[in-house]
């Protein structure tokens, strides 16, 4: 059974195909409105989420399918102590595909090992969030018309930010991509990611604490939130949370065709005054999330069907 646990489970070719399919869905929505008729998606959210859960549900509805599930662990048998493996086996009896978010890292690996239907990791703690990365890649592809030959600035929490880690890993497979890693000293990208992805793949990257001086060279600026839930120490969170706040004046030296992205939710790291700037693309990014999830659901269901036929 094919699952999506980590963005690196997908080849570059598969990602490119899904991006093309998502673009086709945007262009021709009527062609897809009954593709999943009679199929059910289970959204198992052991941790709260707005965008990811709703975009999965909207994606399935737009494909003509149905949705069942829960939006917090308290309303599931997990509250009674049921294991992930047992929950997954139970849900597999009712649904054709599962999107799961869990606060513990590696929970989707456990789920996939026991599931009889495809499992999509919709986020496991601070670990992986592959559908956000697919969303980011579709957005960059739509904005720039390519995924190679560009300078990508990643700003904020690069230490705990799972979306940042996955995006770096995914974009390291495209040619001539340069990364500018902008963060306070305490939230720099982990050493193992630097060694095992950036250095191993001979990527060009610079680390800096200065957003404004990095700005003029960027084609993409990927802002992130400093996440309270990733800190064990509240004092550290309070000290670091306002490290970078993007305001219109900081964009004065930016390229005219810069695209500003953010996985959302934001707190205050992008001033609302930036929202009206045509370079602010984070709400378009949200829309793209639904389309790439439609492409992903279709891909996994089609592969599961092919396997059944064999």
């Amino acid at each position, binding site marked *: 059974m094919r699952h999506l646990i980590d963005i690196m489970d997908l080849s570059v070719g598969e990602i490119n195909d899904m991006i093309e399919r998502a673009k086709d869905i945007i262009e021709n929505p009527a062609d897809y409105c009954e593709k999943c008729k009679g199929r059910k998606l289970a959204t198992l959210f052991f941790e709260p989420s707005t965008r990811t859960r709703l975009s999965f549900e909207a994606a399935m509805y737009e494909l003509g399918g149905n949705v069942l599930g829960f939006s917090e662990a308290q309303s599931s048998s997990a509250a009674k102590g049921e*294991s*992930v*493996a047992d929950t997954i086996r139970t849900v597999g009896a009712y649904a054709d595909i599962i999107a799961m978010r*869990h*606060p*513990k*890292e*590696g*929970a989707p*690996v*456990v789920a996939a090992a026991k599931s009889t239907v495809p499992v999509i990791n919709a986020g*496991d*703690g*601070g*670990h992986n969030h592959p559908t956000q990365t697919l969303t980011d890649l579709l957005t960059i592809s739509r904005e720039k018309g390519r995924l190679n030959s560009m300078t990508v600035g990643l700003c904020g929490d690069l230490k705990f930010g799972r979306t940042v880690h996955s995006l770096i890993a995914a974009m390291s497979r495209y040619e001539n991509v340069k990364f500018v890693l902008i963060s306070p000293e305490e939230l720099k990208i982990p050493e*193992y990611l630097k060694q*095992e992805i950036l250095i191993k793949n001979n990527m060009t990257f610079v680390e800096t604490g200065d957003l404004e001086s990095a700005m003029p060279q960027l084609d993409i600026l990927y802002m992130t939130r400093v996440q309270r839930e990733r800190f064990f120490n509240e004092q550290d969170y309070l000290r670091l949370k306002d490290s970078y706040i993007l305001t219109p004046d900081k964009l004065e030296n930016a390229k005219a065709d810069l695209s500003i992205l953010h996985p959302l939710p934001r707190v205050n790291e992008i001033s609302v005054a930036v929202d009206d700037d045509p370079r602010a693309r984070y709400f378009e990014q949200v829309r793209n999330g639904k389309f790439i999830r439609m492409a992903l659901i279709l891909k996994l269901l089609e592969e599961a069907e092919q396997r059944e036929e064999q």
Partner: protein
Amino acid sequence: MIIGKIENGLVLDHIRAGYGMKLYEILGLDKLDCQVALIKNADSVKYERKDIIKIDRMIDINIDAIGFVDPNITVNYIEGGKLAKRTHIDMPEEIEGFVRCKNPRCITTVEQELPHRFRLTDREKGVYRCVYCESKLEVK
């Protein structure tokens, strides 16, 4: 320092200095009721210093655990006071059951029955990562 010869048993030699106690713990040698000698910082031509463990009984030993702690260890099987076999160890691709994931956010911290499994992700540097959360496993 003189440690007596053994008749039937095992000698784990060429243990990286400082790792003998860790290996002793991982292999559960404290549970044996036979004589076990742990020699720390012995002279070594090859490594200058090394640790050695002598076990005065032929036991089933977890080769994967030895390969994980230090693949340069040699396992000498002694029978009738003589060397019967010498085994060189390789780093196992996967290990399970004798070390635990230390990441407090890992799924293994809440699901007690899950086996703690790790996969070799960098042979050159001897890096093992949890198969669930991908946290790096530290030997020491």
